[in-house]
């Protein structure tokens, strides 16, 4: 982390960047937040630890409109989002100075809490273990156990776009990416419906999943339209349980880089990535392997076609 701060203050000092986009310590030991830093003094609150899961590439949309270059720290998976945004002309590569940072998987405070650890005062990492000081004594939990779901099916620790690299990464992929989707696909329609009804009825329509998503970057969002009774929670009832999440996932189908931010920020813990991964799985199976954000040139699967594509009836045939 010191290395990152040092490099950032160097670049700020010699004027090659106007601001730094990174993470700053929050009010709790486990909630660092994305922040801009404009001078060395502000950089004192900079942090980079296991809880810095936030994907900063979306902030580059606004940063691209500002004067001067912005230094941005991107984890390997964040660079996919950045690439995707570049492909859509939403960010300006010239305005960004990308430092690729190492990643050993990011932590999920909910996973820690689920293991029964409450009243957390401080958290430190020591070779593969998390040492947690709480009001009720000390605890420890293995790093892998506290990791976000998305890091267990990591897409690789290679940065897809960067200007310089700092820090080491460690492979964290230890599960099958589509396992959750396959499990649901095997259910009967009644079970599927009951499962999603159970999960989605928790939705409070806070729109956090939309706001955090680097692919959801329309200036005007359909969910904000007042001609459509979905703009406010007060107006909706069964709507979100059925439609909101399908629409949200469909709007990013073929563009979603599977960064997992939607599931990370959901205050109700809805496994939203299951929707996005369903589309990814279908695209892979029907139109060939595709990974959004791998590069900034290839056409997305929904803006492309072949003459031999499967007919929509294939859905029924696949069972």
């Amino acid at each position, binding site marked *: 982390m010191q290395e990152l701060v040092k490099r950032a203050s160097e670049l700020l000092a010699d004027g090659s960047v106007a601001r730094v986009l990174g993470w700053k310590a929050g009010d709790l030991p486990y909630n660092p937040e994305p922040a801009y830093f404009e001078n060395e003094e502000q950089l004192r609150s900079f942090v980079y630890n296991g809880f810095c899961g936030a994907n900063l590439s979306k902030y580059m949309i606004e940063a691209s409109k500002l004067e001067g270059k912005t230094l941005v720290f991107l984890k390997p998976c964040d660079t996919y989002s950045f690439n995707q945004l570049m492909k859509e002309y939403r960010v300006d590569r010239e305005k960004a100075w990308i430092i690729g940072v190492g990643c050993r998987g990011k932590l999920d405070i909910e996973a820690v809490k689920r293991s029964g650890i409450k009243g957390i005062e401080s958290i430190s990492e020591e070779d593969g273990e998390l040492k947690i000081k709480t009001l009720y004594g000390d605890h420890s939990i293995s790093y892998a156990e506290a990791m976000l779901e998305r890091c267990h099916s990591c897409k690789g620790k290679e940065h897809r776009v960067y200007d310089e690299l700092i820090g080491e990464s460690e492979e964290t992929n230890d599960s099958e990416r589509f396992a959750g*989707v396959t499990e*649901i*696909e095997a*259910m009967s*329609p*009644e*079970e*599927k*419906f*009951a*499962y*999603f009804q159970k999960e989605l009825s928790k939705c409070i329509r806070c729109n956090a999943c939309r706001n955090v998503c680097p692919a959801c970057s329309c200036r005007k969002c*359909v969910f904000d339209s007042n001609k459509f009774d979905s703009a406010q929670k007060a107006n909706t*009832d*069964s*709507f979100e349980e*059925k*439609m909101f999440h*399908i*629409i949200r*996932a*469909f709007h990013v*189908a073929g563009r979603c880089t599977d960064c997992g931010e939607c599931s990370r920020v959901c205050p109700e813990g809805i496994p939203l990535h299951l*929707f996005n991964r*369903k*589309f990814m799985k*279908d*695209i892979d199976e*029907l*139109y060939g392997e595709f990974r959004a954000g791998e590069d900034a040139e290839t056409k997305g*699967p*929904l*803006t492309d*076609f*072949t*003459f031999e*594509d*499967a*007919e*929509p*009836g*294939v*859905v*029924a045939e696949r069972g």
Partner: protein
Amino acid sequence: MSITAKTEFKPKIVAFCCNWCSYAGADLAGSSRLSYPADVKIIRVPCSCRVNPMFVLRAFEKGADGVILCGCHPGDCHYSTGNYYTRRRMTLLFSMLDYIGVEQGRTRVEWVSAAEGVKFSTTMNEFVEKIHSLGENVRLGDLRCRN
């Protein structure tokens, strides 16, 4: 006093038909005196590609029991390639609807050319029959939209 609320199920079916092929196909079905159920309500669109997946969801939300999309045969699109995009889009949407537990038969895409009046009428008859067997759409409908 008895309550006789049992009425026959009359499905609401929305058919999006492209202006250049399927709508003309429906017209041909009419002028050839072929019949198809009155439960099918046709919405004319300039191209099957005009159908935003949200239209389909909206139709279901508003109480449709089935949604069918008709367009020109692949390769015959008036706008050259529109229906190829529709094909990918709808495949993904239908797959997603299946994934969340909506019965598979409620959605369908059929390519009907302007010369295929017979195909239009048989497709619609088949589809309505299928919806009859599936019954009312309770999973995607919104209660507030019931009349």
